[in-house]
């Protein structure tokens, strides 16, 4: 028994029920990539947790480290060049980063599953979708081929696939993007995982199909009481589905709070900028109005400035921002922000 799980069990025995609620806790996770040009700190000290039955949204632009974070949780970082240099990921009382590869394989797809952004490249094109869904269950639940196929049909029915008994014999290319994403979700949910990681599950889909898939993820989450870690760049998706939000920028958490808090009272200038730069549907703004854009672009991770990583794009930058990097501080009520202006 490791020290962590010992502490955890003591706390559980001690009646601290709040800690039982946390499905997964990530502490100070750092994933670096060694390249010819230097070390890239793709994930640089991320802390977050997911409570049971909750959807936590991770928001950020490309290159902010959100996908690397998800892959680190699954321990799927290609190494070399990638390396998880520090941190703990507590799941079920165990530190996932210290598991043997064999034990980790029993977690992947069983207790934690993942839905990827591009359903075409994540499904095997030469295997029928029924067999692909059944494979997970045969491995983890030790079902026979026949039982697994029967359950695959049930799963496809649950995710709203029309005539599922016939579609299990289809190959991925015979399906549309939305249908393939349903297959991915059926596969991810087949072993009733406690945590599902969805990496931009609707980005490649049309808006009407996006609405179907988001509804499906929310409904299935409520039915099976699992938790979801939803990675997206779309704040509209967050508004629709998430209870908690983590805003990431250049590998670090900039703001962490409830979805309600983010939309009603954003604290970090980056979050404010993201919220204000969106065109508002049915606002009747006319066509003369300009959007409040965030100036500049996402900084390269090779040469991040000293001090705050957002300093060059921040509207209220101060001297201290250029010298020292702010810490993620609680502002009360579970609302965390990494900004010097909140210190005063």
């Amino acid at each position, binding site marked *: 028994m490791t020290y962590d799980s010992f502490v955890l069990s003591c706390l559980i025995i001690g009646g601290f029920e709040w800690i039982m609620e946390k499905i997964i806790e990530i502490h100070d996770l750092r994933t670096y990539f060694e390249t010819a040009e230097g070390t890239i700190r793709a994930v640089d000290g991320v802390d977050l947790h997911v409570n049971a039955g909750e959807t936590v949204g991770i928001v950020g632009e490309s290159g902010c480290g959100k996908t690397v974070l998800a892959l680190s949780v699954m321990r799927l970082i290609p190494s070399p060049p990638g390396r998880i240099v520090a941190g703990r990921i507590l799941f079920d009382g165990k530190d996932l980063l210290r598991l043997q590869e064999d034990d980790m394989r029993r977690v992947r797809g069983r207790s934690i599953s993942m839905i990827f952004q591009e359903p075409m490249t994540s499904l095997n094109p030469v295997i029928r979708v029924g067999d692909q869904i059944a494979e997970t269950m045969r491995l983890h639940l030790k079902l026979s081929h026949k039982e697994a196929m029967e359950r695959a049909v049930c799963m496809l029915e649950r995710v709203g696939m029309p005539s599922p008994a016939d579609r299990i014999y289809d190959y991925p290319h015979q399906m549309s993007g939305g249908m393939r994403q349903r297959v991915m979700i059926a596969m991810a949910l087949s072993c009733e995982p406690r945590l599902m990681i969805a990496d931009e599950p609707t980005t490649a889909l049309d808006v009407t199909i*996006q609405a179907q898939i988001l509804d499906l993820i929310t409904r299935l989450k409520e039915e099976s009481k699992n938790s979801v870690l939803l990675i997206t760049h779309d704040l*509209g998706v967050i508004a629709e589905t998430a209870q908690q939000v983590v805003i990431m920028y250049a590998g670090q958490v900039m703001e962490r709070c409830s979805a309600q808090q983010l939309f009603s009272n954003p604290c970090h200038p980056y979050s404010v900028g993201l919220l204000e730069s969106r065109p*508002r549907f*049915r606002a*009747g703004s006319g*066509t003369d109005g300009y959007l409040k854009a965030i100036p500049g*672009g996402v900084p390269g991770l090779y040469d991040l400035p000293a001090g705050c990583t957002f300093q060059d794009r921040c509207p209220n930058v101060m001297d201290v921002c250029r010298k020292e990097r702010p810490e993620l501080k609680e502002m009360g009520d579970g609302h965390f922000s990494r900004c010097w202006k909140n210190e005063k």
Partner: protein
Amino acid sequence: MLEKRKIDFEKQEHPSNNQVLLTLEGVKKYFTVRDAIFAGRYHTVRAVDGVDLCIYRGETLGLVGESGSGKSTLGRLILRLERPTGGRIVFDGEDIGGLSGEKQSAFRRNVQLIFQDPYSSLNPRKNAGSIIGEPLKIHHMHSGRRDRDDEVARLMEVVGLRREQMGRYPHEFSGGQRQRIGIARAVALKPRLIIADEPVSALDVSIQAQILNLLKMLRREYDLTYLFITHDLNVVEHMSDRIAVMYLGRIVELAGNAALCKGPMHPYTEALFSAVPAFSPDEKRGRIILEGDIPSPVRPPSGCAFHPRCPRRMEKCVRVTPELMPFREGRSVACHLYDSDQ
């Protein structure tokens, strides 16, 4: 039939001036594709299936639809990158099908395209200066090296790049900056119509707003007309004067921006707009969840192409294809629900 269509156009809602820049009359584009299994068999894909539309000078016409609705093909037809299977496209009083020589060259100057993907639409072996200067060179404008370089530098400053970046290559720029290069190239010849095909879809959220602002600013400075093709309804509402909604190669609804977004008439438009994610958690609203996917344009459904997914279908919808008919306040809608009102 043609006579009737002309009357329809005049009734369409339009901005202050009513000078028509571009007219599409019954434009069709069918593609023939080989069967996936039987090599000898061919199918017809009706990518664009009878579109009547006009674009007024100085307006931004938003064209929305799901993937496979034919919106990009329509853009390519207007650019003359595809020949229509049927119908006519008239730009500034001339049928573009019959252009040649000097008139063709003038047409190519007047109509430009902004691409979706800023990564694949710039030649990686040319520096920013020669990418932006190339249209000037081809059309013999600003001949003379120095003159051209001055113009390129001016264009770069207009789109928010620095003169010193002229010698840099595309890979040295970020996605947003590359899109600025593409935009500078499109406006270099002072075109009258710009087709923007998903110009911000490949960009990060914080960069999208910058590019949308730039496009709006250019429209005012250069007196441009945009055909703004996108699947993002938030963006189209922000940019457009009028919006046309496409479904399986046809326009199902066309109306002024405010009218369309406040009260869509076609059941497809209604469902499409209700699928837009909420602006904040407090604004979650009832959704119309459409069942199934957009059907294949190889075998479009009989009657109204939307009837298999339509929550309000009637018996007539299965048999008769509704025409795009003018409605009150210059709106047009192709739906049998409004047959008696017209």
